[in-house]
């Protein structure tokens, strides 16, 4: 397999009780590339991300991350969930959350060392939150919490980064900082896969797009794949939301 390819999907299919949730996903992501997973709610974006993480088994096709099975590649894959599902009252500081990203490398029993703390502090600075390191996680704004979760992923020093709707409900400043941090990660050779509703941000952050609606409708460069016809096929008769400006309703 081409060593430059971080993620390879070949007709990947996930089904629960014989009911396919997402099927026929086929594509490749090289180092430094970024793919947007686009599709309506229930399209299977989150399921596909969980499959790449090795958290749900495939019922058909294959997924190879860094030339290995998803479970074997976990050490080099980082996941950024949506920040609002976390308990805002949890007694943990921003830096401590980022430090959690180092746990798999630290291993069992041992505590994170000075080197781990440095990596965590640097990751927090990358997302512009160095001066909030000792603030309790829950006292931060939604956008700041999302940045902390990205910093946690950065601290894992991943080669593949998976994000689930990272820009949902995030303020403009946080958005810019997230985009900048993602760009730096890509410049460093990491590949990025992000599920998003925001087509404008997909254009800014990604060079490829995978259109999903329970099955793959398209996978390719954003310029040639994010077309009105393919979008209509993806969303059916639903509304499409552009960044802040307005809504396009695709006619069925």
């Amino acid at each position, binding site marked *: 397999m081409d060593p430059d390819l971080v993620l390879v999907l070949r007709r990947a299919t996930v089904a629960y009780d014989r009911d396919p949730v997402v099927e026929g996903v086929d594509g490749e992501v090289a180092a430094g590339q970024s793919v947007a997973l686009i599709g309506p709610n229930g399209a299977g974006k989150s399921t596909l991300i969980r499959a790449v993480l090795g958290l749900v088994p495939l019922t058909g096709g294959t997924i190879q991350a860094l030339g290995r099975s998803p479970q074997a590649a976990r050490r080099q894959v980082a996941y950024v*969930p949506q920040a609002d599902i976390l308990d805002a009252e949890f007694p943990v500081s921003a830096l401590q959350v980022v430090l959690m990203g180092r746990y798999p490398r*630290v291993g069992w*029993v041992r505590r994170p060392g000075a080197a781990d703390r440095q990596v965590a502090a640097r990751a927090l600075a990358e997302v512009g939150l160095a001066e909030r390191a000792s603030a309790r996680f829950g006292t931060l704004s939604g956008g700041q919490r999302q940045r902390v979760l990205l910093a946690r992923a950065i601290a894992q020093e991943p080669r593949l980064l998976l994000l689930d709707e990272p820009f949902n409900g995030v303020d403009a400043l946080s958005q810019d900082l997230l985009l900048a941090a993602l760009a730096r990660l890509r410049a460093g050779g990491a590949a990025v896969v992000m599920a998003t509703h925001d087509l404008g941000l997909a254009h800014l952050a990604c060079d490829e797009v995978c259109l999903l609606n329970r099955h793959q409708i398209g996978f390719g460069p954003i310029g040639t794949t994010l077309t009105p016809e393919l979008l209509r096929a993806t969303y059916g008769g639903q509304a499409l939301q552009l960044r802040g400006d307005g809504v396009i309703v695709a006619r069925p």
Partner: protein
Amino acid sequence: MNLFEPFTIPYMQRALVEVLVLGALAGAVGVLVVLRRLAFVGDALTHTVFPGVVMAHLLGRSLLLGALAFGVLTAVLLTAVGRHRRVGDDAALAILLTSFFSLGVVLISRTRGFTADLTVFLFGRVLAVDRTDLVQTLTVAAVAAIVLAALHKELVLRAFDPEATAAMGYRTGTLDLALNLLIALVVVAAVEAVGTVLVIALIVVPAAAARLLADRVGAMTALACLLGAAGGWLGLAVSYEASVDHGVRLAAGATIVVVLVGLFLLAAAVAPLRRRRAAAGGHP
């Protein structure tokens, strides 16, 4: 009230060591129970361990071993139940809890003079703790403390973000089983001191009080251990003074729990003042 004089007597000394160790251990484990909102699971565990204690007593074997066997069994069962969503966690737990507990009561009620035994199992008999009991408690406590220290950061991670925990490659099922086993160990260690009904207070109350006052898991744990130990010490002193100086018989185990609740109420009263002071100080 004298906080030191009662403890010159050997049986009071043993009781004190027992409650200090149990209070600190239950406090530390309780932090994870409170953060994960597992108080009901913890309570269920204390009830499901009960028939193990009864069976061990009826067979003339060590209560500790009986409790331990059932503690492990029920920890495994509860972990399995918790991971299947069909029946609903609460309902399944309630079924397990009541059926096991009733089994224990049925078994014990077949012996003559069962009410006295029942009281001991349910509410403990900390003042009757002898050297062997103490050594057993300390051994179980040491094992639990070692396991807790070894797994602590992963247990906190799992409490905070179960999705990321799984994504990082940890088996959340194994971590959940480990915590349930820790709770079971605490219950086993506490059976003779405060009994199965009151041990849940030892686990939950100091940690809940610490939660009100601390903003970091580390501080919360230290505070919970301190409050747990302090409650044990004060409770023993109060029940001793009441019975010796005032002729009022106060069950030692239950008095400890009442003291702990008092400490919790104190923490609840102090907490808003602390928050106001922090806000006025211009914390970010």
